[in-house]
């Protein structure tokens, strides 16, 4: 065992503690302060400059609703974000555990076609939620 072998482990735990604290802090802020209406959050630069709803539009408002347990309201604000939460949570938790030395959750390499499909889905979502026609405007926040 190298003499310096312990140091990266400490740094890894500190990094994990930092990210857990960061996520908790963001969660608390989002739980308390609703991004809908006048609030302390900065405006989205993309929406401010172009007026378009990008694929991320409404994510913070949806996260606020999710934290309060309002799944339907969250789906109404940004359905793609709500659907992506389980995948993101699994990958982050699995990656975090692996970096701390536990490979309890398997690492799965997605086939490339799945990621290309996801790309197509995001681009289609981006276009469709900007069309102000009756069934499609449900996708806009």
């Amino acid at each position, binding site marked *: 065992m190298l003499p310096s072998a312990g140091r990266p*482990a400490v740094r890894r735990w500190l990094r994990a503690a930092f990210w857990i604290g960061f996520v908790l802090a963001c969660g608390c802020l989002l739980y308390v302060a609703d991004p809908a209406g006048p609030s302390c959050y900065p*405006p989205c630069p993309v929406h401010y400059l172009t007026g378009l709803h990008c694929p991320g539009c409404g994510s913070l408002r949806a996260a606020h609703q999710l934290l309060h347990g309002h799944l339907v309201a969250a789906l109404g604000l940004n359905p793609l974000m709500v659907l992506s939460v389980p995948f993101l949570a699994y990958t982050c938790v699995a990656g975090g555990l*692996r970096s701390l030395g536990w490979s309890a959750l398997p690492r799965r390499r997605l086939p490339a076609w799945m990621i290309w499909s996801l790309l197509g889905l995001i681009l289609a979502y981006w276009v469709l939620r900007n069309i102000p026609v009756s069934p499609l405007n449900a996708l806009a926040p």
Partner: protein
Amino acid sequence: MYCRNCGTLNDDNAYRCTRCQEVLQPVAGEQGVPPGFQPEVPNYLVYAILTTIFCCMPFGVVAIVYAAQVNGLLTGGNYAGALHASGKARTWCWVALFCGLVPGLIWLLMVGVFGVFSWHTSLR
């Protein structure tokens, strides 16, 4: 960098893996990779999706393109190409994050400055 033996994430300048003590020297070309071994190359897909969905940033979409390339090239056995695409994916994640955060920080700074300024003038 990721350990070739056990997949653990180590510091980029680390000499040995902290978990299995494998030597982490960069491999020249692909000669060092044993046949049949599938090295794991990060595709940064999670960061790409996070920046696309939470930073409101179209640049995250570019990172998703490179993430797809990483997995496609790895499946095809092109390790060097996958590493190259992996680096590109990482770069675009950072670009998306900065373009999403910097305007927001400037906005917060402006609000802070103008808020303090208006409060100060209201005292007169």
